Structures are given as C-alpha cells and as structure tokens.
C-alpha cells in the first residue's frame, strides 16, 4: 500500500497555474414556495452562503457538518450539478458556468469539464439503475467518455477495473443486476463507474455511511488506493467526524467544518482534532463518541439550544451565536471571516484574535459561558 505522500498539505497553489478547482464567494439559495398565497415573496433557504475554497491535484478535502449545513449542496455546486445563485466555480481557471452558457472566451470546453467532475452517492440502492446489469452501467460510462474502444476492448477494460476494485471473477459480477449485489459490492460498482470517467475530482457524498461498520475502512482504503492510480482529488462529504478524520489523515488532506451554509473552519485533521479553534468544531468533537476507556462521561450537550435554527431566516452575524456558549453581543452583529490569527488553521471566529473587541462585549448567556469554560471546553 503506497503510504501517504510526504510534504506539507498543498493548500497554497505554489506552482503559479490556477488550482484544479476554485470556489469563490459561492452562494446557493433556494426559493421555497409556501402554499399560502402566490403573491407573497417566497421564503428563501440560504443553503450555502459565500464560501471560498481551493482544491488542488490529487488533493483530499472532507466537508463535515450536521444535516442542513449545506455540505452536500456545496459539493454539488462544486462539481457543476447545482447552479450557484452568486459567486463562481473555476475549473483550472475556467468558470464552468461561463463554459456551459458559452459566455466570454471559453478555453476549456464544457464537455471536458463535465467529464472530469464526477459523483459517488451515499445510498447504493438508488445510485444504480435497477434494470441495468453492471456491465451495461459501466459501458455507459465508457460510451459517455467517448472511448473509441470496440466492444471487445470495452469489455476488457471493464473486467480489468472490476478486478481492480476486488469484484472477482469479473465476468460473473459484470452480468449481475444490482439486486444481486450486497451493499458493499454495489458501492464498489458505483465507485468504478465514476473512476472509469477518469475524473480529476470525485464528490463522495457520504459514500461510506450507508455501509456496515466493518466495511467502511475497507471502502475508504480502496478509494485512497484508486486515488493514486487515477490521480483524482476527492471532495468527501460526511456527518461523521471519525470517518472524516480517517480519510483526511490517510490522504494527508484537509477537513472543512460547515455550519448552516458557512464554512466555519478549515485545516488539517491534526489541527482540528487536537486544538479546534471554532466553538462549533469543539461541539462536533464532543458529539463524536470515543472508544477510549480513559475518557469518562462527556456530560450534557455544551450548547445553549439542541435544535438547529431554521435555514430560511438564519441568525444574524455569526450564525452559531444562537447556540454558542461563548456568544457575545459582537457575535450577533458582525460576520466573522474565515482567517487565521496564527499559522494554524483558518477559523471564522473572533476568539482567536486576543485584541478583538469581542472580549469586552458582554456574554449572551454568562453562566453557559462559565459552565463551558470550566469544562476546558
């Protein structure tokens, strides 16, 4: 197993040419038409709110957050399946929606971009067409990549890749229908289909959480092995910090924490797990159960409110201020930027700057703050 590549994490694009994929102030808002009266302006759900992120070659970024945090929407916007409301998505410097609409000078054709950004879904049941055999599903991928292989060559290519992901004997698996495969086998076929497109970036939308516990690590290892062979980057989406940590650490990538549409912290697994900066990352850290026998009872939830606020009218300023134990007046007024006070990871929270006027504005809930502080939270 080739071990993780050395070298510090490649978030800075040092080689001058534009990063593989660049999201710049990306926002995706949905209009929800309420039934009351057609003339009232519809409620707007701010699923993703001005997020910027860069992904490089053979890079791995894992987005973590609760459901409703917009991580899947951001993922789909990044690979061009979801048109953003504002901001842009650039693939090797070329804005993909300009390419699609043919606006301005289009250097990389949309067809090219489309093929190099693929997706692996969470639920193996609905990600495979039930009335198509594995072979037909995979040859569809080859056809769409307009491989000029004759049918024998195509068959050979499919059998090779099936063997590669451990589905042996290949001809047997190739002629099966999805209902004749186990969950793990289906997920491997789905991964194969995406990789057959020879993509530069694969969005893995919770790709392992539907699998049995004992298969998850197997699947993540497989994805990382294939990352070497196919030189592809991964944008992994997960609500489970343990899975995220395993993948990011193995692939020497980064973890991004999403809350209610905002990217609130971005850094290496070591930085985020050992000394998280943003209070929400700490809450996620608390919520992730650990197997270690030394750690005793975690105590009550360290948030002022269990339920996630409604995404249609998110809280002002820092959106976590309604649940954050350390929230102060300042947090409700100004929106924190994703930046770093030191050379550690970026975080969208004023607490990292000790000269910020956050420190002299009063708590929203003093005893919650004391309780949290006392638990070295």
């Amino acid at each position, binding site marked *: 197993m080739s071990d993780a590549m050395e070298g510090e994490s490649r978030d800075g694009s040092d080689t001058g040419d534009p990063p593989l994929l660049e999201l710049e102030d990306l926002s995706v808002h949905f209009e929800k038409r309420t*039934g*009351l*009266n*057609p003339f009232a302006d519809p409620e707007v759900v701010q699923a993703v709110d001005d997020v910027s992120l860069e992904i490089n070659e053979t890079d791995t970024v894992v987005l973590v957050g609760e459901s409703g945090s917009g991580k899947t929407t951001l993922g789909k916007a990044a690979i061009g399946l979801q048109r953003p409301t504002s901001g842009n998505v650039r693939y090797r410097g070329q804005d993909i929606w300009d390419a699609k609409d043919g606006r301005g000078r289009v250097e990389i054709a949309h067809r090219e971009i489309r093929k190099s950004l693929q997706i692996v879904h969470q639920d193996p049941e609905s990600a495979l067409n039930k009335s198509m055999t594995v072979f037909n599903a995979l040859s569809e991928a080859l056809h769409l990549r307009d491989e000029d292989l004759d049918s024998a060559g195509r068959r050979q290519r499919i059998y090779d890749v099936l063997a590669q992901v451990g589905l042996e004997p290949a001809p047997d698996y190739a002629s099966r229908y999805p209902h004749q495969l186990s969950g793990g086998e289906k997920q491997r076929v789905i991964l194969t289909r995406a990789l057959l497109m020879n993509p530069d970036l694969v969005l893995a939308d919770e790709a392992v959480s539907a699998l049995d516990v004992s298969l998850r690590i197997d699947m993540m290892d497989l994805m990382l092995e294939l990352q070497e062979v196919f030189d592809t980057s991964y944008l992994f989406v997960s609500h489970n910090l343990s899975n995220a940590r395993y993948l990011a650490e193995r692939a020497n990538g980064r973890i991004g924490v999403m809350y209610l549409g905002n990217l609130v912290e971005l850094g290496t697994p070591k930085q985020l797990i050992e000394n998280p900066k943003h209070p929400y990352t700490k809450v996620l850290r608390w919520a992730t159960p650990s197997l270690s026998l030394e750690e005793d009872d975690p105590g009550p939830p360290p948030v002022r409110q269990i339920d996630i606020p409604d995404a249609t009218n998110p809280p002002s300023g820092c959106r976590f201020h309604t649940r954050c134990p350390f929230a102060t007046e300042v947090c409700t007024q100004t929106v924190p930027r994703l930046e770093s006070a030191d050379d550690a990871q970026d975080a969208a929270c004023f607490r990292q700057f000790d000269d910020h006027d956050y420190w002299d504005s009063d708590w929203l809930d003093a005893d919650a703050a004391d309780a949290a502080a006392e638990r070295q939270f």
Partner: protein
Amino acid sequence: MHPIIGRIQQSLITLVAAVSLGFVLIHQLPSGPLDILFGLYDAQTIRNMDPRTIQELTKQYTGFSSNEPLYIQYLQYWESLLQLDFGTSVIYQEPVFEVLAPAVPWTVLVSTLAMVLNVTIGVSLGAYMAYREGSRFDIGATFVSVIVSAVPYYIVAILLLIFLGFGTGLFPNGGRYADSITPGFRLDFILSILHHAALPVLSLTVTSFAALGLRAHSIRVLGSDYIRVARLRGLAERRIVFHYVLRNSILPFYTSFVVGLVGLVSGSVITEKIFQYVGVGWYTFKGANAGDIPLVLGTFTFFTFATVIMLLVVDLTYSYVDPRAEGVGADESF
C-alpha cells in the same frame, strides 16, 4: 388557500376550452353555421331567403350571426351563453335551455346517488378486502372486481335491465317514475322515483368501481411502520382500521377516484338511453342521433359544467381530509 385558487383557475380554463371547442366545431360543419338550416328547410327555400332572415335564423339556432368577423361571433357566442341562450334545438324547435332544464335534476339525482353508492361500497369493500388480504373472500372479491372492471358499464346496464327488469319484473323497464302516479311531493312518488332510478344508479356505480384501487392503497398502508407501532401500543383493531388504514389509504385513492367520477357523469348518456330515463344524457343521445348540433353542444356544456363543479367540491373536501394537502392538483401518482 393556494391549491383552491389553482383549482378554480383550472375549472375556468376547462369551461372556456369546452365552449371554445363548441364554437370551433360549429365552424367545422361542412358549410359552417348555415349547415344547421339545411337540416330544417330544403335547399330551395334557403336559396331564395334574403340574407337578413338567414342571419336571423342562424343567430336563433347558434347564438351568433355568422356574417360578423370571427372574434365578434365568438363574443356574441359567449354573450348568448352567459344569458343561458344555448341556441335552439332543431328536433324540438325550442330553446335548448328549455329542453334541458327539466332534465337536469334527474341526471344529477342518478349521478349523485351513484357517486355516494360508489364511495361507500368501493371504500368499505376495498378496505375490508385489504384487511382480509389473501383470504378466500379477498381472492373472490378481487376476481369479481376484475371481471366487473373488464366489462363495459353499458353491458352491465343491459344485463341488469334484462334480468332484473324484463325477466323478473323486480324493477321497471325504464322511465323516470310510474305513469300512474301524478308528480308531487308525496312518499309514493318519491318511492317510485327511487324504484325507477335503482338500475341506472347501479350500472353507473360500476363505471368507476373503486374497490380495487383502494385495496391496493390499503395494503401498502397496512405494511407501514405506524400501523405496527399502533398495534404495539395496544390500540383496538377497529380504531386501527378506521383512523389509520382508511384515513391514510383514502388520500392516494382520492385522485384516482376523481377520474372515475368524470367517467361516471359521462356514462349517463348510454345508461339513460338503455333505461329510457329522460335526463340530459337522453337528450344528448337524441341530439347526436339526429345531428341536432345546438342540442348536443348544449348537453356537452352542461356535462362540462357539472364535472367541473363536482371536481371543485371533491377538491375542497380533499384538503380537509389530508392535513398535508396541496389539493387534488398535487402530483400524487394515480
């Protein structure tokens, strides 16, 4: 409520479409609106009629004078319709409205009774078949339902007429009420009406036999989690059947039920012919048979109006039944 506004909008569009279709069809006649006159006068008299009387006559029969530009004709057509002037019937030489008005209550009576019967039988039979799924009763009832829905309703009407009418004399062979009884608000008159309406109502009930549809939905509901939890909570079976199974299987059934209703209303044409039951359907048959365009168009407009009203009523009650309702217009699969 948005869905209701949507529903009313849809009803208006349907009405306008029906009326416009009528208008267009009149112009499709071999020689346009004049064609109606040929049915009445021989070619000779028409040729030497002066144009003004021809205009008068066509206006009388169709509701618009055919020499005006098209859009004027269309507006006149609407104008006369809104004044309930549907033109004049060729075979009865009376305004279509006068011909149809007395017949409307009879058709409404039969359709409404059939609808009520259909709901009660269809729903309770369907629910019970689902509840006893796999039992001999279920298999037998399903087979009968399949046969019934495989046979057109007018064949069922004929069989009813022959075996229950001519054959055994249990029911009258046709007509709306016994000639011997003078109409009046008395018990014997009402009984006679019901006695005469029995067979038509029964045959119309068959048109949109709902049992099979409801059975399928009920079976799906019976398999869901909340039924299992309800049983674990020790709820009485009766409560589960009514408040859980029926309430939840009615919803998807509602939309397929509506299609059945439209079929039921338009089914009255043949049924009224078979049972000599003089309602709007009867006049439709008479008009179509004799090529009396104004009469047939009149009945068509009535049927459209009746269907639209019925669907509005159904839609209003629907949103009451299902709290998550977006109205019948929602894209529930049939």
